[in-house]
């Protein structure tokens, strides 16, 4: 235990507060900026108090978007991001939990090879294999489609690996008890393994949802049709508006809106996940 000394308490609080400031100041500035009028940034002085354009800015972003930048309104882009993030998170979890189940519980030829093949792909994230992946997606004419946005990102070694590690900690006796109780492989997976993995699934879902939501390079490459734009790449387009000062107030409104879904996911899942952490016991 840390001793209860006033100076130490003061110091630790100071560090925490400074850390908080470092993290929150940019967010705060973005929030303030999203409430200001279009011309208020040209002076170069960053305002620190809310302005009175809040409703106008947000309404503009949600309804018409920044048409000058060639981006569609924010709402459809957010829907695209949501679809992409959900498809990636759910797809990755489903595939990886099933593959981990196969690798841990079934003896089949080349099992070790299968595991290592999956494991090796850890070293090859999308960014590394982006050109060949693009080639494949293009040849399968999946450009400008949800399938093209999500499928190449779904295959996941990380999650498979995590589930494998978790399955290995499930006591052998439990598996045998289930066998004696007449649970076949599917029942065992469904009735026992899946409920036991609940907290792992929740944690992975949070991480993967944010991973999917924050995808930038891949959607930028394979979408040319504005109907499939995602919000993160859309914001980049708004900010990089050629030949003119970006409309920071609107961009920042978009940023604030784009941050809401991941925050909701974290808040919602965190409860489940902390509950799981406290309750966990095998």
């Amino acid at each position, binding site marked *: 235990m840390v001793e209860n000394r006033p100076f130490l308490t003061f110091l630790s609080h100071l560090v925490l507060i400074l850390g908080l400031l470092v993290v929150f100041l940019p967010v705060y500035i973005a929030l303030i900026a999203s409430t200001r009028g279009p011309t208020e940034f040209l002076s170069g002085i960053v305002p620190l108090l809310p302005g009175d354009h809040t409703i106008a800015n947000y309404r503009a972003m949600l309804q018409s978007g920044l048409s000058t930048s060639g981006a569609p309104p924010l709402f459809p882009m957010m829907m695209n991001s949501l679809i992409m993030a959900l498809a990636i998170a759910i797809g990755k979890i489903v595939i990886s939990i099933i593959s981990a189940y196969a690798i841990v519980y079934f003896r089949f030829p080349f099992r070790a090879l299968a595991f290592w093949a999956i494991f090796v792909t850890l070293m090859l994230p999308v960014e590394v294999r982006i050109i060949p992946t693009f080639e494949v997606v293009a040849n399968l004419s999946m450009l400008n489609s949800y399938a093209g946005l999500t499928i190449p990102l779904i295959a996941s070694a990380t999650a498979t690996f995590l589930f494998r590690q978790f399955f290995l900690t499930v*006591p052998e006796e439990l598996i045998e*008890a289930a066998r*004696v109780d*007449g649970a076949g492989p599917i*029942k065992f997976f469904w009735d*026992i393994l899946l409920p*036991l993995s609940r907290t792992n699934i929740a944690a992975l879902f949070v991480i993967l949802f944010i991973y999917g939501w924050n995808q930038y390079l891949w959607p930028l490459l394979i979408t040319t049709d504005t109907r499939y734009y995602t919000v993160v790449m859309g914001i980049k387009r708004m900010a990089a508006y050629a030949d003119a000062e970006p409309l920071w107030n609107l961009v920042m409104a978009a940023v604030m809106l784009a941050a809401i879904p991941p925050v909701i996911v974290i808040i919602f899942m965190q409860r489940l996940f902390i509950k799981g952490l406290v*309750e966990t016991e095998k």
Partner: protein
Amino acid sequence: MATVELKDVKKTYAGGVEAVKGVSIDIPDGQMCVLVGPSGCGKSTLLRMVAGLETITAGDVLIDNNVVNRLGPAERDIAMVFQNYALYPHMKVYDNMAYGLRNRGMPRPEIDQRVREAAATLGLAELLERKPRELSGGQRQRVAMGRAIVRSPKAFLFDEPLSNLDAKLRGQMRIEIKAIQRRFGVTSIYVTHDQVEAMTLADILVVMNAGLAEQIGTPLSIYERPATTFVAGFIGSPSMNLMKAVAQGAKGLQLADGGSVVKPRDTELPQGGREVLLGVRPEHFTLVKDGKNADLELSVTAVETLGADTLAHGRPSGSNGSGGEIIARLPGASRIDEGDVLPLAIDPGLAHLFDAASGQRI
């Protein structure tokens, strides 16, 4: 309700370990067979072959006279209680007990009735809505028992079910298990390395050593007539004293460590010159007043006072120390000190003789 029969069952693991080298046991309906033996002797392996959790390398397992070698655990209609309970952590007590029944497609009302009956028997009625982590060790053990009972299986299999409980609870649960097994009359196999459990629970006791059944019999018959020195040393606490000796014909037995000649009464002596092991249980020594009636004089080197009993450790007087220590269990009231020389008589007919080379009973 079934008979369980093992016919020369063998197990060789993939790595080449011969865990069970041929064991035959016949368990009549409703009896409890206890497998006891030191760690690694193959008890769990044997039990798991009966359960169907481990393949059988050779031999047959028969339940109700049907060979079940190729059936899976669920099809054998057995129930198993595991050492670490193996309760499903995410299911309530009720669901833990009901799970096996649901998997067999039993109708709900019948499941409900069976679970509630079992819970009442085991004193779990109040706990049905709890999760396993909200239970004490003893309660978890009861749930594990309940899960076995509700199935009304042909046989119960227990693998060291009490080894995670503290001594007091273990004693209590031991009695409960026995009572339940008796009440339901289910044929059972029980693995333990605790000899008190083994002695108290068994109708049939199997002492195993290195993959073989050294002796099979009732607990008392094994205690009274151990077939080998291994069984003699394993069953009984403190273990039987085994003294190397050479037979001197009618004169008795010359202790090999230089001690006196011993002539146990009511014991058939082997022919002269034969090397034997003389076995005497600590509780079968009696302290005699008169040195003339003594079979053995014990120079006491240590004394353990247990209250009811006193354990005197020592060597036969005249011993050169090459033999092992001898322990005598004497009444607690006999005040004994280190350095005493105790005249001890071996109770008539309670000396055991084993062949020194083979360890077999003579």
